[in-house]
């Protein structure tokens, strides 16, 4: 006779109605109705969910440990998990964060059905709960690699309601596999004018793991800076708020060290110059002015990054037919790093890979884009430059562009045009139209690792939220794009 139990769903958070950028947490109560302890060993005895399409009754997904591991790790691993013991005639609530098992679900109505597999193989199903997933308008998505030790990819998505209220979601994606996430959290509501940036880590040494479980976001509006500190997937402390008079525009990222110190930079335009100011927020919550740099002619994009002992500023200076990218440190003045034909339209510095990535547009023939990557450690080394031509008829005018040069020197490009298409152009120069009929996709490309160098492409779709797909050829794309949930 199977062990007599009772299963019921006691809570769905943040609620039974969520959007497609949010993952729910499901709490299930398991009541042990026998005078013997109930042992969930995860092998013979398992508790899991089925996700069922409410309309058709089709089981779309079995959400169990196997799924979680397959989403979190590239290779098959064996996780030794201790058994869960529920005492005789007692109950226990187990909470499952779906973010750890799968992507947020597509728009639709689902039944969440708890299932219990008894040691003899008999399956007991509890009462299902309904989860409604709705669409929302994404207005910003930012993906970054957090730190080398607890090396998550992070995805910050900001959606906007019809009432112009912004909601933000932060997911800490899997270590080597940006599919599922360790933590998934909703951030406080923001006003329409607010910008939000991450503070990127600038440390390496690990005396203890707590800095690796921290995330810091900076919210900026009307010269007011709010710092959100997040620890283990939850907001900690009361957000600190500072006034920065006449600070100008906040640069796109800040820097955080393992002690929790924050460094951020602002930029103001004075004629043809950009003035970059660096600030330090110490652990006591004081904001200190650190330095000011006048970047002559730097009217283009500016990127900063930090190492464990410095802040590095990269700025673009447009000229008539070309653009220069310069490096600035403290009072050393600007040092020219790269000069390239065309207009700079994107500049990224990847601290962890020591790369400066830039996209230039040919001034005479805007359909031609130059993709440049150089070693930030050694700018004397000749940069890699690859060019692609995009006809307006086929691709539309450029809206979004992302590129990555993989470990095999292959160029991968994601491009959105004003014809509402998202195209992928692979190292073989072949184009695959991934999506249509959406104005923005917020694409990003993440490098693979040495074990599997194929990169991941991430992009948003209105009804499906933000997902990552490994670039593995046309057939695999089709397979991924046709996933049921």
């Amino acid at each position, binding site marked *: 006779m199977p062990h007599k139990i009772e299963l019921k769903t006691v809570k769905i958070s943040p609620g039974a109605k969520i959007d497609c950028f949010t993952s729910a947490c499901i709490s299930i109560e398991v009541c042990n109705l026998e005078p013997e302890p109930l042992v969930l060993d995860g092998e013979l005895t398992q508790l899991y969910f089925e996700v069922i399409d409410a309309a058709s009754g089709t089981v779309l997904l079995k959400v169990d440990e196997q799924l979680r591991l397959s989403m979190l790790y590239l290779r098959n691993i064996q996780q030794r998990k201790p058994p869960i013991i529920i005492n005789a005639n007692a109950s226990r609530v187990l909470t499952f964060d779906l973010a750890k098992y799968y992507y947020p679900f597509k728009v639709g109505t689902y039944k969440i059905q708890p299932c219990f597999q008894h040691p003899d193989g008999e399956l007991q199903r509890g009462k299902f709960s309904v989860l409604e997933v709705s669409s929302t308008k994404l207005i910003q998505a930012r993906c970054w690699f957090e730190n080398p030790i607890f090396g998550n990819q992070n995805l910050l998505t900001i959606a906007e309601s019809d009432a112009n209220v912004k909601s933000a979601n932060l997911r800490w994606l899997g270590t080597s596999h940006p599919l599922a996430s360790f933590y998934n959290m909703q951030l406080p509501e923001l006003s329409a004018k607010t910008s939000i940036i991450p503070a990127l880590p600038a440390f390496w040494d690990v005396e203890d793991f707590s800095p690796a479980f921290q995330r810091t976001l900076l919210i900026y509006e009307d010269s007011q800076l709010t710092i959100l500190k997040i620890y283990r997937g939850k907001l900690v402390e009361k957000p600190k708020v500072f006034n920065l008079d006449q600070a100008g525009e906040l640069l796109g990222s800040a820097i955080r060290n393992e002690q929790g110190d924050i460094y951020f930079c602002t930029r103001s335009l004075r004629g043809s110059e950009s003035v970059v100011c660096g600030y330090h927020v110490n652990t006591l919550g004081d904001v200190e002015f650190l330095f000011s740099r006048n970047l002559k002619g730097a009217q283009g994009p500016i990127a900063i990054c930090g190492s464990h002992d410095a802040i590095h500023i990269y700025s673009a200076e447009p000229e008539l037919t070309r653009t220069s990218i310069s490096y600035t440190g*403290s009072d050393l003045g600007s040092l020219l790093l790269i000069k390239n034909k065309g207009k700079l339209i994107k500049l990224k510095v990847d601290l962890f890979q020591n790369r400066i990535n830039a996209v230039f547009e040919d001034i005479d023939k805007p359909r031609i884009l130059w993709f440049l990557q150089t070693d930030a450690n050694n700018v004397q080394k000749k940069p890699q430059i690859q060019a692609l031509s995009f006809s307006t008829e086929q691709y539309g005018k450029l809206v979004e562009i992302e590129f990555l040069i993989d470990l095999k020197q292959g160029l991968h490009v994601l491009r959105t045009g004003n014809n509402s298409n998202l195209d992928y152009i692979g190292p073989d120069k072949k184009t695959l139209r991934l999506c249509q009929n959406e104005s923005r996709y917020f694409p990003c490309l993440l490098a693979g690792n040495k074990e599997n160098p194929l990169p991941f492409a991430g992009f948003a779709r209105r009804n499906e939220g933000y997902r990552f797909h490994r670039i593995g050829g046309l057939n695999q794309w089709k397979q991924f794009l046709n996933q049921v949930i």
Partner: protein
Amino acid sequence: MLLKEISTYKPIKDETLKTIATDNGVTWQQIALISLGTEDPKEVYDTLRHYLKIDPKNEKPVCLGADFEFEGDEAGEDLKIPKVWSQDGFQHETRHSIRARVIEPRPYIRITRIDDHFAPQHEKLDFSFRIGHLENKKVSLKIKSEHYGVDDIYTRELLAAEKKTGSDKEVTEEYKGETTVETGLLAGEKLYLNPLYSPYKLIIEEEGGISDEIEFKVLYAEIELEQAKWSVDDKEPDKASDLTGWLRWQLNELGYFGGPFTSNAILAGEYLNRAIKMYKASDTEFQKIQYNDKALTTQIGGYPDNDSIYDDLDEDPAQFRNLLEKRLRKSKNKRKFIKLESDPFSAEGDKGTFWVQQVLTQKDSQFFAVESGTKLTQDAARLNCPIQPIRAKIKVKDKTDVAQEIPGAVGQVSVGWRVEDPAETGMNNRYQALAVSANDNQRLPYIQAVQNFITTEAFEYSDGTAMVKNCPECCTGKQNLEELFYDHAKSDGTSPHPMAVRNGLPCTLAGIDPDITKSFGTSSINFLPSNKAGDSFRVIADLDFDATALGFTADHIKELKQDNDANAPGVVAPLKEGRDSCKVKTGIFTIRRTIDFVRIVKWPPDDAYEGEMPRLKLNFEQCYIDMETPGNDEKVSVKKVMSNKEYQKLVRDNFAPSVVDIKAGAGITDDQTNAFVDAVLPGKKKLFWRKFNLKENYLYGRDLPPQGDLTGDEYKAAINSLLYGDSGFVGAMAEKTSYFVATKIRPKVATGHISIAFKSHKPVTVIDDPSLAKPAQVKEQDYVCSNFSSMGNADGVVFYDLGDIDRHAYVTAHEFGHHQFLYHHFVDATDDETLHDTNDDNCIMSYTGAATRVEGVFDPLFCGKCNLRLRGWNVSAPHINFPAGS
């Protein structure tokens, strides 16, 4: 008695002298005396032969003259019929003159006996003759052959004693097959009659007069094969005058297949280039240079993270020429490349083995192997085929049919060369008996199916000989005999055995130059079998009795070798047609590959891994790859190969933060940089790596961070990430630590696999949830990462994680497989499954835990396709249907 001729008479058929005499009322002696000058019964027939010109075909074995039956068609003189002269009526006491003449005996020559065949030089040609009444004439002994034109092959004048009338005479000056001719292929002091021009005629001839002749033969007996030296003249080239030849010779001697001595200069050059490069890569002194010379290591192309080395030592002999010559001169670094079990060259039942070096990924680590070329391109670029010159000693029969080796009596005969592909033996044991379960039975049928395909689709060598199991050409094997055999030449490319292809077979001529001793009377060739492990060959050499090639008629040629009927001694067997009449096979030569497991760096030092070695070797044994495993002296603690300072440097260079170091590009001084750092982030410079120290037992050389307030799951995830994340310690250290260890070991042992067997970190205690009250805490003692990462890194170095849940032998074989250019099976969606037998769930190139691995069966070996790939096959060949499902 006086005789008077009264008439002439032409005998008619079946008449004899006796019958004619009776018919004419005289005695046969009287007819013989007046017609032939003799009445001696022993001489009558001999003279009849000459003067009546008896057709030799009508000669009877025994002729006693008067009883010889004429055919009636004799073309010579008519018989004279006499009567005894008598005259009556002479007046007494009157002087009468009667003129009569004495009948002079007429000369004759008759050769009465000769050897059917003999072995020139080895023995004399025995013959007897009768001669009469030629004492005062010039009489010669001559040898001719209708196949040699009009010239006398041999001639000499008979000595006086030899000419003296008599029976059963033999020459006093014996004849052993010498030649006196001055033109043609028999002209030469050390040349003797040979079978090519058989049959010969021995002639005894009176100058301008009568003669007699008789036929005899010189016959081939057999071919005997033997192992030949690298050059056809057996001479090691002189280094000063022929450096290329000297290098080639030395590299051949040391087992690097430096190239055949052949007229094919292009092929020889390609072999030499590959061999020089392979030698340098296999030599410890060159490895020292390779790992220590900064100028070389900075040439490394491709991925900056990979320390490629092998391309830096090139094929140019001028690169480090002095060292190269020195090492070769001292015969350093000789490798086992051939083993002969008894003498497979001369005995079909004996065996031989050629060992080819298995190529490793030297430039790149496992997953980048494709960047520096697949196994196929690497094999093609770096591997030579074995080289084995084989000499065919051609023997002739003596009078007693014993084969004699007489170089001067062989002639310029042609020897054809071909191969047989013997069936593979011991397949059950090799492919199936190893499996732990009867259900694990995919490999044997796979190999059988491949072999079945080869036979049913009639794959054959270029001469039409059927293949059985060897690697076909479309899979990079060899089928064209012209690629299996090349002419055998001197260092300058000239050969006494020029090669031509006839009827699909490479054929080489036997040498007729007595000054090239080894080639005189023999024919040799370079046999270059494939380098595919598991291929095996018998070489077949035969006398190429291709009449056209030698300029003879087929009827003539097939008579050059006659054998007695095996069932009827003394009776000549029916003549065999063509080359089957004289062929010989070698024993079976099998190609194997070698790659040794040369060192284990133990980290911690307490495990000897001895029990795993036989299982490891079995994986490769199935693929005809021999592997030596490390002895106890070759298993060393990490502290024997690395100091604490060196370990810290590895940490600093590979795990330390990646500081954006703009100095190199911008020319900023250290002081300026420090000023900047101090100004912006005071006190942040850290000597991070100094917190790490080399631990004998663990790779991670410091204590793990404490758990703090993290939950057990978070803490474990963090530890796993610290060690095994994308930038985790193990991954960061793996390649460069492997490279570093190689720098220490390669100067002592240049080639082969190295394994660094490490534990990743010191075990820790994990508390389930620190926020709970202490009694509720669940402790997990001695937690070690559930993750693990074993890698096959560049230059054959395995970074083996002792936390790996698989058996040591499995993981090591798997990583060795990567080193040998194998890819994953059932691991990732991007795996190229065309390189695997997808019916085989237990390929060792998959991971434990793969859904496909059969529970309870799993005892992995290389799948059928991996097996073939390791041997060197192209399993993606479009022209071969590998078994369904593969």
